[in-house]
């Protein structure tokens, strides 16, 4: 498609630029080669003309915040933005039918990603909306009989804010602390469940520290105590295996723009109102994810990792702090000169 070709040309231009580069996989890297004279602080003319030329942008590593749109996703979306623009709910004509067919295909794809039935997928505007719907929806639905919810202190802000607004409505919320590893204590969770608990919400993978919560075990606990289990899986979907049936997840929030999809358009909430049989899963080991972004082939990942390791080692050897640590000096004890 046109855009993919354009990106390939840009990638070629980057690799052709002067600079020490072995055959680097640069598919889709949005770099523009900068070639204008560097500014010097000492002369007075430090203003840069707006058209001074393209600038090298910093490497993007904040992948946990959001991801760039994958060209293949854009390719898949474009026809429905340009040609096949019917409303999927227009039942009476071909434009509507073809859009509906596409939407159902997307629904099926999401469902198979998480082991759910397509009828259990709902599209919303984002994981934030999904979290709000799940938490406030379940809480208010059972308001007459159950007034207690459980969540963790390390949840995403939208989850914590939803809980806070429910507290203002008269609900009671327990915010479970996490251990040093970042993972909740399952015994504390069990102890916190009361007869009037309607929902437990624990995110699958934390967006700031990357720890994986023991979702299968939490699902088992919730299912045995007849409490609904919601998980914010925005950071986990597509990255670790998930099965909503095996893990006894009742509600799950997913975020499209964390997995190279568009922002604000296609996010999914999964709802399930039945209990399922549990199959055991091993307890997840915490790990810290280092976002290296949209490098998706093994070759690209290996290359990026090698580069990172190489440069980090070099910088470490150049660092006086590392030298002091190796000599056994406690860095906290040093009085630094102010500047």
């Amino acid at each position, binding site marked *: 498609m046109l855009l993919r070709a354009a990106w390939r040309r840009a990638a070629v231009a980057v690799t052709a630029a002067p600079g020490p580069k072995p055959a680097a996989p640069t598919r889709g890297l949005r770099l523009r080669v900068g070639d204008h004279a560097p500014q*010097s602080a000492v002369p007075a003319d430090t203003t840069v003309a707006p058209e001074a030329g393209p600038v090298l942008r910093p490497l993007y590593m904040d992948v946990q915040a959001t991801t760039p749109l994958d060209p293949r996703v854009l390719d898949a979306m474009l026809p429905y933005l340009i040609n096949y623009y019917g409303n999927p709910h227009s039942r009476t004509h071909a434009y509507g039918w073809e859009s509906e067919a596409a939407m159902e295909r997307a629904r099926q794809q999401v469902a198979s990603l998480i082991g759910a039935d397509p009828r259990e997928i709902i599209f919303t505007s984002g994981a934030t909306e999904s979290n709000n719907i799940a938490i406030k929806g379940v809480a208010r639905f059972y308001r007459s009989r159950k007034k207690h919810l459980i969540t963790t202190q390390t949840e995403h802000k939208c989850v914590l804010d939803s809980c806070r607004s429910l507290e203002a409505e008269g609900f009671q919320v327990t915010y479970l602390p996490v251990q040093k590893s970042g993972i909740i204590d399952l015994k504390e969770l069990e102890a916190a469940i009361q007869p009037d608990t309607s929902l437990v919400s624990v995110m699958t993978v934390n967006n700031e520290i990357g720890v994986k919560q023991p979702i299968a075990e939490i699902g088992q606990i919730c299912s045995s105590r007849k409490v609904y289990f919601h998980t914010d899986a925005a950071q986990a979907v597509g990255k670790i295996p998930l099965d909503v049936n095996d893990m006894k997840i009742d509600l799950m929030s997913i975020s499209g723009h964390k997995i190279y999809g568009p922002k604000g358009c296609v996010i999914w909430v999964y709802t399930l109102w039945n209990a399922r049989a549990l199959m055991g899963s091993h307890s997840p080991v915490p790990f810290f994810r280092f976002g290296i972004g949209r490098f998706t082939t093994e070759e690209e990942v290996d290359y990026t990792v090698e580069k990172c390791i190489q440069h980090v080692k070099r910088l470490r050897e150049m*660092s006086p702090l590392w030298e002091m640590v190796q000599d056994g000096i406690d860095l906290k004890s*040093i009085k630094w000169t102010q500047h």
Partner: protein
Amino acid sequence: MVLTDMSVDLSTQVVDHYENPRNVGSLDKTSKNVGTGLVGAPACGDVMKLQIQVDEKGKIVDARFKTFGCGSAIASSSLATEWVKGKTVEEALTIKNTDIAKELCLPPVKLHCSMLAEDAIKAALADYKLKQEPKKGEAEKK
């Protein structure tokens, strides 16, 4: 691999010092002929350690540096070690941060790196001078 300091291009000189730094390493800080300067703070993002070795005639014969910081900080301290070599202790005091900044074409946002390099030189010289006074023989850890 090219680093970008935010949206500012690194000059070729800075890139050169980053890719091929001169005089990275350490001298024996317990030696009487070695002056060690440690300036900056991790919280500020730049820490420089600069060491000079001085012969009996007062001439700097060797210099080493280690820096934790951005490309401009590494380049400034690398250049500083190049410049102090061969100078006497008095001559080295005349090295100014503006000279370093001009040589490396540092943009305004990176001027503090050259200032820190000048501080590092001065700190190393001060430490060396301190060691030459027999009564106050203890090199203070800053």
